């Protein structure tokens, strides 16, 4: 897996709560293999309906950070939602809360979901609206986020996921190091299915 260490990139504000993974990537695209390039499917229906959709505005071209609202990525467990975002160049998303499975899926794809208090995220979106195309700087090792106004905010990240991201570790390889413990567990507890 690719490592995630620091990211200095333009951020897009998306003022919508409860953005579900069906909107991030509509179901009809899921039949494609991952090699199809899921970035092309990102928010497809929203973009078709709204030519002014914020991700399509020229001032946000090349943005790699999404700043949004509560419960981003709720709904279906489709990991393709994360592939659509990373395929379109995004590496980090900031919200007051995330859909739980989407949150997990993010880390598995070298992307960083950051949870900040709702008021702080709303303030950040306002700053980005006021100065479209502004960059944010994320430092994962230090767990800091530098805002356009120069303010620095710390964020929490699970130490295990942080290590995996920083080193680009494949989690399955890590688990296989515990093979003996898994086998011992099975020997103690297993009843036939």
């Amino acid at each position, binding site marked *: 897996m690719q490592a995630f260490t620091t990211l200095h990139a333009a951020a897009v504000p998306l003022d919508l709560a409860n953005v579900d993974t069906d909107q991030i990537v509509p179901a009809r695209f899921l*039949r494609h293999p991952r090699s199809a390039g899921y970035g092309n499917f990102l928010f497809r229906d929203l973009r078709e309906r709204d030519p002014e959709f914020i991700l399509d505005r020229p001032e946000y071209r090349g943005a790699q950070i999404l700043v949004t*609202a509560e419960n981003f990525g709720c709904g279906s467990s489709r990991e393709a939602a994360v592939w659509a975002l990373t395929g379109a160049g995004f590496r980090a998303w900031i919200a007051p809360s995330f859909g739980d499975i989407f949150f997990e*899926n993010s880390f598995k794809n070298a992307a960083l979901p950051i949870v900040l208090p709702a008021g702080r995220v709303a303030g950040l979106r306002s700053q980005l609206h006021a100065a479209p195309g502004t960059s944010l700087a994320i430092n994962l090792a230090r767990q800091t986020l530098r805002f356009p106004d120069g303010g620095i905010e710390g964020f929490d990240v699970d130490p*295990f996921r942080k290590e995996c991201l920083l080193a680009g570790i494949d989690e399955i390889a890590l*688990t296989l190091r515990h093979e003996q413990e898994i086998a011992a567990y099975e020997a103690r507890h297993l*009843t036939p299915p």
Partner: protein
Amino acid sequence: MAATLYDKIWNAHAVAAGPGGRTLLYIDRHLAHDGSFHAFEALRNAGRSVRRPEATFATPDHYIPTRDRQAIADPQLREKIETLAANAARTGITFFGPDDPRQGIVHVVGPEQGITQPGITLVCGDSHTSTHGAFGALAFGIGASEVAHVLATQALWQTRSRTLRVEARGLLRPGVHSKDLVLALIARIGAFGGTGYTIEYAGSAIRALSMEARMTVCNMSIEAGARSGLVAPDDTTFEYLAGRPYAPTGADWDRAVARWRRLPSDPDAVFEREVALDAASIEPMATWGSSPEHGVAIGGVVPDPAQQPDPTRRGSMEKALRYMDLQPGQKLEGLPVDQVFIGSCTNSRLEDLRIAASVVRGRRAVVPALVVPGSGLVKRAAEAEGLDRVFREAGFDWREPGCSMCVGMNGDLVGAGRRCASTSNRNFEGRQGKGARTHLMSPAMAAAAAVTGRMTDVRKLLAG
């Protein structure tokens, strides 16, 4: 020390401790479906094998057509089902294929076969895996990477969730079902009210529910933001499981039941959060918007975004109203619907079909209506008691089992701009098809909508 049901299952499955308080959790059962091809592909690309094939059970549901299955016309759909069959054969996992009467929606098949049992951990690459919590199993949905992880290691790194107990007091009134209960809960706590929590459903209203009805409640836990829902196992659970193909038998059964009886949360166990619901005050519900939290009693009106103080939520409400073509203050009852869908992992079990049929009997559907049983066995059982005839004579379409119009991957779609009364779990924009407008409700309410062509309080039909 007093422990919750969640604690007991968690503690019994901890294999190893990881950094940051994470635990390597052993996974007892894994369910796979025809959307799991991404994970099998990742596993294969990494040159990894399936650690314990006997723990995984696969059946096509997302992509499988609900008719003309002998010759699936769409080559992409056919390929998805053939891929699952090939992956199952190659890895040695159990496969309930299109010709097998056990085929169906994974969350219907698992319980039906007795694969789902109290106290186990169960995962599936589908968010509605929370359904299986109805048995007192720790069950949650995972993404494709985690599916590959489970196939390769039979374990997952997890962080303990917080615990929320929802106590539903009293009893549901006639015409009000478990779907109404859970829609009322989500309307109350919000679509992210359960984020970070495992919800344990308790109280007299939950105890009185059948296993089918408990599954409906646990199924929708994900729509409240929780990854899992739980109901403590009791005699209702054991009666449902006894004699199921994969359930223990003989002395093993007795030992299992003795073990299962120790699972319920200790009386003095502490939950981090508690919510009480008065079940007797719950009315038949329907959603007006594009989030499962947008539910109101059928006699209610579409809320006014202007009254929502939070600007982000207000914006989402406004967007939902535009999408749904509804006005603030509009009454839900009487709103014309274009079609009806009865099915999905929320409401496609025999009990759901019986409830819907009891409303339909002797009436005619006045809009196109589709009934999709949750499994081949549900379909056969329904046909054995004549439910298919009730639906067919009323002009309903009676189909083969699958996810169908809940997720719109198999070709069963709601047309753009059309309004569907649906027993499924999600009313997201585009969920049932591009531009489709979904109103979530119980099977009884969906049946009432089918025979009146409008959103209707089903109790009025029961009284008449």
